[in-house]
C-alpha cells in the first residue's frame, strides 16, 4: 500500500463524512415528505467513490448509476445542489428535472447517473474513446453494481474497450445484493465482475471496497495503466449498503447479523482508525466531524429555502435551442 499524507487522509474523511451526512439528510427529508419519488442511498459505499476520485484528475470522466450521490459529491457536487435536486428546487444540480437517479455534474466531468442497469457502461467506453480521438490523456470510470454484470451491455462494453485498448476503468461496487435478491443466487461465478474479466483478457482484481486507501491505490494503478495506453481494467470492490435498496425497502432479506458485521467495517470507521494511527488527534478528528455537521446543516437549510424550480422548466431543454418544439 502506498503512503498517504495525514492531509490526504483527513480530506477523504471529510468528503466521506459529507456524503454520509448528506445521504442521512436525504433519508430524513424523505421521511418528512420533502423529498419525493425514490432514492437509493449509498451509505456504506463512500470509500469506493472517494478512493477512486482521489486517483483522478479533474478532467477525467466519471459515470454512475441511480445510486450515485456519492460519486457526484466525490467529484465536487455540493451537498446543497444534491439535496436541492432531491427536493425539486431550482438550485438543484439538474433544476429538479433529473432527481436522485440522474444526478449530474458536468462541470466536474461527472457525466451523469443512469437508472437503467448497464446503460452507462458503454457510455464510459465512449468517453474513453473520445479521449483517444481527441488525443487527451483523460481516463473514464464507470461505477456499477454487482447486478449490472449480468446484463448484456456490460459485456459488449468491456469487449469493445479491451479490443480498442481504451482508457476506461470498470469499477464494480459489489454489495452482495441486487434489489432484494442476493447476487450469488443469480450469477454463475463467485465474483460477478472480476471473474468475467478474463473473458476480455483482463486480470482478476478483487479488493476491499471499504478501505479508501486500498481503493485509491488500486484505481491509481489502473489509471496509470490507462494513461500509458495499456487499456482498461476491471476492479471489483467488496462493500455493503447500510440502508435497503431504495426508500421502499426494509431489507428483511438480509440474514441476521450481516448488517452488524458490515457496520463494524464501515468505511468511516476504517478510515477513522487510519487517521488515529497516522497520528491525527481525537480533537482534530472531532473538529472535522463538527465542521462537516455544520456544512451539511447549512446545505439542508439552503436547499429547503430555495424556491421550487419554475414550472416552465417542464418544457425546456429537450432540444439544443432550449425548447421543446417538435413541429411547427
Amino acid at each position, binding site marked *: 500500500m502506498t503512503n498517504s499524507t495525514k492531509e490526504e487522509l483527513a480530506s477523504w474523511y471529510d468528503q466521506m463524512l459529507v456524503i454520509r451526512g448528506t445521504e442521512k439528510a436525504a433519508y430524513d427529508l424523505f421521511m418528512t415528505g420533502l423529498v*419525493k*419519488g425514490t432514492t437509493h442511498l449509498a451509505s456504506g459505499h463512500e470509500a469506493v467513490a472517494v478512493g477512486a476520485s482521489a486517483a483522478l484528475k479533474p478532467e477525467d470522466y466519471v459515470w454512475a448509476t441511480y445510486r450515485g450521490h456519492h460519486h457526484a459529491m466525490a467529484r465536487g457536487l455540493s451537498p446543497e445542489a444534491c439535496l436541492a435536486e432531491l427536493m425539486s428546487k431550482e438550485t438543484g444540480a*439538474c433544476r429538479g*428535472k433529473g432527481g436522485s437517479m440522474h444526478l449530474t455534474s458536468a462541470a466536474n466531468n461527472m457525466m451523469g447517473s443512469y437508472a*437503467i442497469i448497464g446503460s452507462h457502461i458503454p457510455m464510459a467506453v465512449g468517453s474513453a474513446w473520445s479521449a483517444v480521438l481527441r488525443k487527451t490523456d483523460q481516463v473514464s470510470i464507470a461505477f456499477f453494481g454487482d447486478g*449490472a454484470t449480468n446484463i448484456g451491455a456490460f459485456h459488449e462494453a468491456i469487449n469493445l474497450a479491451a479490443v480498442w485498448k481504451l482508457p476506461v476503468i470498470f469499477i464494480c461496487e459489489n454489495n452482495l445484493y*441486487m434489489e432484494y435478491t442476493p447476487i450469488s443466487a443469480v450469477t454463475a461465478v463467485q465474483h460477478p465482475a472480476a471473474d468475467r474479466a478474463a473473458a476480455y483478457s483482463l486480470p482478476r482484481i478483487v479488493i476491499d471496497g471499504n478501505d479508501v486507501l486500498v481503493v485509491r491505490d488500486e484505481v491509481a494503478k489502473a489509471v496509470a495503466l490507462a494513461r500509458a495506453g495499456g487499456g482498461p481494467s476491471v476492479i471489483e470492490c467488496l462493500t455493503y449498503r447500510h440502508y435497503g435498496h431504495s426508500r421502499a425497502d426494509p431489507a428483511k432479506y438480509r440474514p441476521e447479523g450481516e448488517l452488524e458485521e458490515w457496520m463494524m467495517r464501515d468505511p468511516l470507521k476504517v478510515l477513522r482508525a487510519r487517521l488515529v494511527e497516522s497520528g491525527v488527534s481525537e480533537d482534530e478528528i472531532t473538529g472535522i466531524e463538527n465542521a462537516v455537521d455544520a456544512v451539511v446543516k447549512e446545505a439542508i437549510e439552503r436547499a429547503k429555502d430555495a424556491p421550487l*424550480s419554475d414550472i416552465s422548466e417542464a*418544457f425546456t431543454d429537450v432540444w439544443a435551442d432550449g425548447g421543446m418544439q417538435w413541429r411547427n
Partner: protein
Amino acid sequence: MAELITYREAVAEGIARELRRDPSVVCIGEDIGAGEGVFKTTAGLFAEFGPTRIWDTPISEQAIVGAAMGAAMTGVRPIAEIMFSDFLACCWDFIANEMPKVRYMTGGQVSVPMVVRTANGGGLGFGAQHSQAVENWALTVPGLIVVAPSTPSDVIGLMASAVRSDDPVIFFEHKALFATKGEPAPAGHVVPLGKANVCREGTDITLVGLAWSMPIILEAAELLAAEGISAEVIDLRCLVPLDAACVLESVAKTSRIIIVEENPFQGGWGGTLASIVADEGFHDLDAPVKRLAGASVPAPFAKHLEDQVLPSVGATVDLARRLVGG
C-alpha cells in the same frame, strides 16, 4: 358487497388464479419470488407456488423474455415480468422482432403463448427513465396483443384472457393505479381481449382512454355532467385488438371526441385511433378530432413539473366544454 381490493392485489390475484388453474403457467422475473416484486404485485405467489413456478432471475431482460419465448414455444405458458415498462427497451428485439413474428415467419408452425407484464406510466416522480407510458411502442408492432387495464376486476379478467391467449401479450399495469381500489372479481372472471368498456353513457361528446386516463376521464365526465354536458366514456382496455367499432358507434351518437392518452402526443396511440375516426367516422363528426396527450418531453423528476406534462381533469373539462360549445 364484497370488500374492495387494490389494483396491486388484483395483479397478484389474477396471476394466482391462472397458476392454480393451469400447471403449465409459470412466472419469471427479477425479485418476483421471496421479494414479491418491487411493486408487491407478486405478493403471495412464492409462498403458494414455490420456486418451481416462480423463478427469480438475474438482471437480464433479454434472457428473461427470450427464455420465456423459448418456453412458450415448447409447451409452457410463461408470465414474464419486466419491472418497469421503460426496460422493455432493454429487450425490445425480443418484444418487437421475435415474439410477434414467429408464428407468421414460420408459416404458422409455431405459437408463442406468453405474457410480458410490466409496470407502466408516470405520476410517481420516478423521473425520465422510470415513468414512461410506452403502450404506444407496443402498438407499433403487428402481432402483439396490447392490454392496459384500469380497474382491479379488469386486471383479473384480462389477466385470465392474456394467459390463456395463444398469442403473445404485453400487459401494462399502471404504477399510479396500484394503490387504487375497486370491486373484486368473481370467481372465473374473464374479460375478453379487445372489448372496450362503455363506463358511462352520454350523448354530447365521447371521451376515450385507457388505464391511467380513466380516473381522469371519469372525473371530467362527472364535472361536465354538472354543467349539463353529457359525456360518453369509453375505456379501451386493449390497444390490440382495438375495439374501434365501439368508438365509432359512440361518435356516431355524440359527433365529438377527445382521446385522452398519457403517452407523448408524437407517435401516441391516440394518433392511430384519431386517424380511424377521422376516416371512418368523418361524416359523423361535428367538431375537430381532439387528443389530449402527454407533452413531447421526457418525464421530469419533480412532481410539480411532472404534473405539467400529463393530461389533467381540468384540461379535459376545458376542452370538452369548448368542443361542445363551439
